[in-house]
């Protein structure tokens, strides 16, 4: 049951590293992260905040780009290059194939994120103490930063996995361009989901229909902002593991929904 999934995942993982485009994004992201300390000087007095904004922002943003551009190609490439024919002719069900492709992509994302994270940690460890020394009263924030950054990257991983899942499912439904656009829109709208909540606020004079529709939209859309704990980093707040687990659990639950939809769609898809 698991073996074909893992085998497809492994092949996907190996193949992903041969895509120049994705390597290019990764390289560019690491470059941006590596130079995040330069941007820090844009905000005198808030260098630490800036280095984190740029560094973690780049990890999430480029991770998302990699997820979208890889995820929307994983299955269509197999179909277009007809490699899927020989694989599905073997004892691999469509569900196993979809989950295998997703898992391989997820592993690729994890390694990409780990590489970006390591690059960021190195930059941070070199430059941050210098910035922190200039503001001794923020020492407590700085002290919590190392662990908070690790937590932020873990949550970013779940966020980007979710983006990958959406991209993979979208690619089984739409053409490539459309699925890229679809995934971006879901991601952006998901980031702004609080906007729908505000819009549907009856205090704002939203009509009853608008309230129901927007409220439903708000409930159905994945709330990508829950994976963002930069506030905690910048404020030096401790993020409890309970909340971390809850957030990861929610990410996993969203993923189950997305992959289930992917299975239902792909199971009847002709290749």
């Amino acid at each position, binding site marked *: 049951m698991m073996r074909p999934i893992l085998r497809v995942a492994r092949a996907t993982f190996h193949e992903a590293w041969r895509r120049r485009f994705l390597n290019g994004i990764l390289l560019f992201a690491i470059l941006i992260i590596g130079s995040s300390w330069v941007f820090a000087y844009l905000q005198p007095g808030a260098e630490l905040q800036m280095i984190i904004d740029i560094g973690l922002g780049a990890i999430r943003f480029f991770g998302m780009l990699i997820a979208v551009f890889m995820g929307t190609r994983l299955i269509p490439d197999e179909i277009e290059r*007809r490699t899927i024919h*020989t694989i599905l002719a*073997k*004892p691999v069900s469509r569900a196993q194939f979809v989950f295998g492709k997703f898992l391989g992509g997820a592993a690729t994302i994890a390694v990409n994120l780990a590489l970006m994270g390591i690059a960021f940690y190195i930059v941070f460890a070199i430059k941050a103490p210098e910035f922190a020394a200039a503001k001794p009263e923020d020492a407590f924030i700085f002290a919590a930063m190392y662990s908070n950054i690790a937590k932020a990257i873990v949550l970013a991983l779940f966020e980007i996995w979710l983006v990958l899942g959406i991209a993979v499912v979208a690619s089984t439904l739409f053409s490539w361009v459309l699925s890229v656009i679809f995934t971006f829109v879901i991601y952006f709208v998901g980031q702004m989901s609080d906007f729908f909540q505000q819009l549907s606020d009856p205090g704002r004079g939203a009509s009853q229909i608008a309230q129901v529709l927007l409220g439903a939209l708000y409930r159905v859309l994945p709330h990508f902002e829950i994976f963002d704990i930069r506030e905690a980093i910048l404020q030096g707040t401790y993020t409890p593991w309970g909340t971390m687990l809850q957030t990861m659990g929610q990410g996993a639950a969203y993923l189950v929904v997305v992959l289930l939809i992917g299975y239902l769609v792909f199971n009847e898809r002709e290749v």
Partner: protein
Amino acid sequence: MKRPGKLARVARRCFAISLAIKTENLSKIYSQDATGRPVGLIDLSLEVEEGQIFGLLGPNGSGKTTTLKLLLGLIFPTRGSGQIFGLPLGSNATKERIGFLPEGPYFYEHLNGIELLSFYGTLFGMGGSRLAARIEELLHLVGMWDRRFIHVREYSRGMRQRIGAAQAMINDPDLLFLDELTSGLDPIGAMEMHELIMELRDRGKTIFLCSHLLKDMEPLCDRVSILNQGEMCQSGAVEDLLRVEDQYRLLISNCSDELTQQLQTSAQHTEAVGNHFAAYYADQSGALAAAQEASAAGAVIEQLGAHHRTLEEVFIEAVGGEE
């Protein structure tokens, strides 16, 4: 050439009616053409017995690959149904027992021969030394052992075809689907493949061949079905299809008009075949007499004997008969 005799077939039918493939009105209709005729595969009913080499023949676009994809569960029928070894199409249990070589096969470019076969092998849950031994055996079999470390992206078409055949056989399948087996292969390679297939058949495997090269399939297949525009127009054992009862042919060249007229009166019917002239007779003695006559008239006897049709002729006849 070994073919199971009529008796064997009868015996099989009586005692162990095991069909490798059975379809009933299997259809896949994509659209309709301008005249309202459905495009795709229409009402295909097939029965392929175990241990046969079955050829699904027809020109390009006649629905062969569609049939194959339907049987493999890659696409789903609009109506009708099918079974492989009594199991539903596209189930993992079915796929455990089959092998598939697509036309002009594509594989992961970044793998080499061994990695590729090991990838497909593990999809069957194979592994360890058993898989390694199987891979070595197959690479030798398809003549790729010396080139086993070359990556797929550097393969020629023929090499792709060979490694494709190897991956199709990785699980030692009972039923092998081969789409345009010899495409991209040189004549020697094609011959090797043909020998391989017959060897497999002799080991009791069932082979399902798809090809537009009717001539190549003629000596290979036990049974064929011929498709044209999505519909089956001929089906049966190859020898039955090709045999023409009581017909003898005389083929001559350098034929004078006088002789032509003579032969036209004596023969059942005549025809011009290129530069040659053919005359058909109902019995052997008549043909022999005509040959002597022709020889006396100074014509050159090119061929004389019992007449067999080619599959091409069968096909053209079938298509022509339809119109």
